[in-house]
């Protein structure tokens, strides 16, 4: 009897151990951090100011909502990120939990000085995930990016993530850049990281309160803007427009975008480009002067034609295809030129060279950023216009043709 009782009690003790709650922190003791921003601290003895966008669960779920802001921003400064985290933690009643950080925003000012030290923390900490997205706040303090109330979703960080996802799927050239992508970029020889830019446009002052979304037109809007490119870990510039598009295409991250061809005055054809595929190969028999061969394949659908083009004829489409290819080639050239200007091979040509000639690569790897600028780049583009969407000729082209016929 006693033996049974002892066994029973003992198994009860082991049951307690099974919960393994030595480390547990209950949900209501945690403050879920959804976004982090890192700024340069202005005072002399500190290095970083880190702000944490913390989700206020009560405001999200609605039941116990007091109608306050759904997220709160806490900041702390320190000589290292961890010290800044500690200083910020003292302002929060709960344990700052970094496992759900979706976005990390670094200010442009800090990025120009180098981000290696930051990246080490982001990579090393076991609470952080490698899948957090990185952004560079363009010309603004990074903190401002996190203090905007957004329209869709109550958590601004998630809103930014969704904006990035939608722009990467259509119309934009920004793409997901996660912690490990940046580290690989910094590590690669003669190269650098590449990170999305982000800005708040509009009235920053009223963006931080709920007033921002009370009107039909939001007062301040958060949006992605350009690609920040680095030489090693230092920001050297931003790529917009053609350069940005070309760079994203070389990364094979341009999934779907718009493209316009101007054929003359009041004669514009707009395309939706999709199924873009880029391969970068190197011919590095002479590693001092590698030849980079880029071939791009893309498909297009005509979306808009404001001129008298007769789109029922295949040769008209052929001609448009040629123009599209040329334009793509120009964009890609612009991207390559920009990289050569910055002397930073963030485009990853080095990998192609290493794959082609591993032994030759060994000889040039330490001075790749100068060898890189000597690369000969050949670009081949193949475009196919698959369809002209729901109509063939434009209604304008009919009149245009009649005029042409009568005259």
């Amino acid at each position, binding site marked *: 009897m006693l033996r049974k009782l002892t066994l029973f009690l003992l198994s009860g003790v082991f049951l307690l151990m099974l919960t393994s709650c030595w*480390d547990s922190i209950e949900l209501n003791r945690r403050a879920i951090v959804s976004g982090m921003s890192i700024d340069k601290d202005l005072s002399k003895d500190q290095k970083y100011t880190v702000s944490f966008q913390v989700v206020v669960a009560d405001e999200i779920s609605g039941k116990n909502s007091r109608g306050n802001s759904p997220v709160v921003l806490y900041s702390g400064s320190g000589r290292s990120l961890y010290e800044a985290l500690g200083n910020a933690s003292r302002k929060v009643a709960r344990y700052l939990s970094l496992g759900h950080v979706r976005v990390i925003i670094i200010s442009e000012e800090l990025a120009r000085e180098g981000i290696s030290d930051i990246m080490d923390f982001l990579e090393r900490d076991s609470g952080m995930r490698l*899948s957090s997205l990185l952004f560079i706040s363009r010309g603004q303090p990074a903190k401002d990016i996190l203090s905007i109330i957004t329209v869709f979703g109550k958590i601004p960080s998630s809103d930014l993530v969704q904006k990035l996802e939608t722009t990467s799927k259509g119309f934009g050239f920004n793409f997901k850049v996660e912690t490990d992508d940046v580290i690989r970029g910094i590590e690669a020889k003669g190269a650098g990281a590449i990170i999305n830019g982000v800005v708040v446009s509009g009235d920053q002052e009223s963006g931080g309160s709920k007033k921002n979304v009370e009107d039909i037109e939001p007062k301040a809007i958060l949006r992605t803007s350009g690609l920040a490119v680095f030489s090693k870990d230092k920001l050297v510039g931003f790529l917009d427009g053609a350069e940005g598009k070309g760079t994203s295409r070389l990364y094979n991250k341009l999934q779907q975008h718009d493209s316009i061809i101007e054929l003359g005055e009041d004669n514009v054809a707009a395309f939706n480009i999709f199924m873009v595929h880029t391969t970068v190969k190197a011919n590095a028999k002479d590693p001092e002067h590698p030849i980079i061969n880029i071939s791009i394949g893309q498909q297009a659908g005509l979306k808009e034609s404001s001129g008298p083009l007769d789109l029922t004829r295949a040769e008209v489409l052929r001609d448009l295809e040629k123009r599209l290819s040329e334009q793509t080639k120009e964009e890609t050239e612009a991207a390559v030129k920009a990289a050569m200007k910055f002397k930073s091979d963030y485009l990853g040509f080095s990998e192609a060279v290493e794959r082609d000639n591993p032994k030759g690569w060994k000889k040039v790897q330490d001075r790749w950023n100068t060898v890189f600028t000597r690369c000969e780049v050949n670009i081949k583009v193949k475009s196919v216009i698959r369809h002209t969407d729901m109509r063939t000729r434009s209604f304008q082209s009919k009149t245009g043709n009649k005029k042409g016929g009568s005259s």
Partner: protein
Amino acid sequence: MRGPKIGLLQFFSLTLLFELGTALLVNVGMVSGRDAWISILVGCMAGLVIFAGYAYLYKLYPDMPLSRYAREILGKHLGAAVAILYVVMFMNTAGRDLRDGSALLVMATLHRTPILVVGALMILSCAYVLHKGIEVLARTSLIFLFLALSIGAIFTVLALLSGEMEWKRLFPVLGDGFLPVAISVVRQNYMFPFGEIICFTMLMPYLSNDRKGVWVIPAAMLLAGLLISYTSIVNITVLGSDMVERSPFPLLSTISKLALSELIQRLDILVVMLLIIGVFFKIAVFYGAALVGISDLFGLPYRTMIYPSALIILFSSILNARSLTEHLDEGGQLLSDVLPFFTIVIPTALIIVANFRRYRSASRPG
């Protein structure tokens, strides 16, 4: 050897889980950079050759563990000394694996739990299963093998569908030639985890079928080699070889990258489960091998020494290093300098002496 026997399938699953054990989780063969997966396969082949030697000894003495045929071959005193060395080595390796497991757990998830508590719970569960007997351990392994393989299947689906794998990170294959791979194999891969199969010489007498049984172990080793190599490929394609090289626990970082849209993500817990399962069987097999050795050497009943040995293993695991770094460093030295003595030198000596004796006794008939 008298006593219960272990079926072929169960022996297979025990061997497979033992081989996968910690090797699946720590970065194996990263001396060779992005060619780690090749060095694992080469290491596996070398391991199979080494195992052929053990199989030969097993054929000569099918119902004796290593500790007994060592005495048979080398004589009572020298043989006993060798057997004691092996028991010490098995216990030390069990302790090292216990430290591997508990240190990684503490580092990755249980930040504030004392390493002693994690280690004690783990060694106690091993002791419990071994108390039930080696054959229970083998049966347990079959159940956990299904669990481990389903985790592997989920991991594979996730890796393929998440789009995080970049195959070009594996190229150029053998860019620096074969030398780094060879160095990695000699320093580490043929011993870890394949040379460690030496402890199965203590368990092989339990095989229910000694003719087919010899083939079960190399089959499991081969499969384990392929699986470890595959995991290494996934790690390198997801993280890049440099990041894998800098991670003591790369699989956890890899799985934190994998996600199926918003729906399925943060499956880190699966990897932690894999860690616990793998480490459990690795410790249990070394621990069991040591127990069989002790009971055979000193004629003690097998169960008597379970708890004293558990204490020794637990404390050696805590005391042998101050930090994970020191521990891993020590492990590297053991693999390249000490373990080959046990897995190659002594077994080779045993084979030579055994043959010599047989030759002598055969040449003088009558």
